[in-house]
């Protein structure tokens, strides 16, 4: 690991900053916000969106269509909203990312996974849910978005102390 130090540090940072701004600017031109999920930067803006539609828009820049090729596995009733096991699998080809949205949480986007070539398009994790909510999984495959939703009843919310 290298650390920046000495009088050159700021100059180098400024140059780097300028270069990446220029690159970002160019890169965004032909693609628009849809690139957000595909490039390898943390999607800060998408995580800040309050409702689900805004978060999907910020992350992918388009809308998803429901598909029975996306299988979302979540409990009908979650005893503890702090730890809800969720998994998704899909039979779709050319999957590049999988994201989870919890509609009733303070911020809808919960997690987004980048799936490079060679990685099986399936993921299991555990999420928090504030209350009974709609859960949406979105799979990005071949540039299109496919979704599956499920209602999860939460008996004890995951946000309380």
């Amino acid at each position: 690991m290298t650390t920046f130090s000495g009088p050159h540090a700021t100059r180098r940072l400024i140059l780097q900053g300028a270069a990446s701004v220029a690159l970002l600017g160019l890169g965004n031109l032909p693609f628009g916000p849809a690139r957000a999920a595909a490039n390898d930067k943390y999607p800060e803006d998408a995580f800040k969106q309050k409702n689900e539609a805004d978060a999907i828009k910020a992350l992918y820049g388009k809308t998803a269509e429901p598909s029975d090729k996306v299988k979302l596995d979540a409990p009908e009733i979650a005893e503890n909203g702090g730890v809800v096991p969720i998994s998704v699998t899909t039979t779709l080809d050319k999957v590049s990312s999988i994201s989870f949205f919890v509609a009733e949480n303070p911020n809808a986007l919960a997690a987004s996974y980048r799936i490079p070539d060679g990685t099986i398009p399936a993921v299991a994790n555990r999420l928090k849910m504030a209350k009974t909510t709609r859960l949406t999984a979105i799979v990005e495959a071949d540039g299109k978005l496919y979704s599956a939703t499920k209602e999860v009843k939460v008996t004890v919310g995951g946000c309380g102390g």
Partner: protein
Amino acid sequence: MASSIRVRATSNGDITEVQALIQHPMDTGLVKNPNGELIPAHFIQELKFECNGRDVFVADWGTAVSKDPYVKFSFRGAKKGDELKISWTDNKGGSDTTTAKIA
């Protein structure tokens, strides 16, 4: 200090299954402590798995991922004995890295 990351990677022919468990508070920034003060947000933002010089899985996480997060996925193209490198960074600049041999 012991690593915050516990990982098990098992090869099953062509496919390697990875399960990881990370110790992290994953504070949302919305919960109050017993004194009524907000506990500031503290959560893992990015978790990355690398094998043989390429990323095989990258997670971008928000505060809605449960405390002590767990994740499971599978990938192709690795064999027994290959090394899997796991690293995470959180919103306060904290990070940890570990490597695991695929069994």
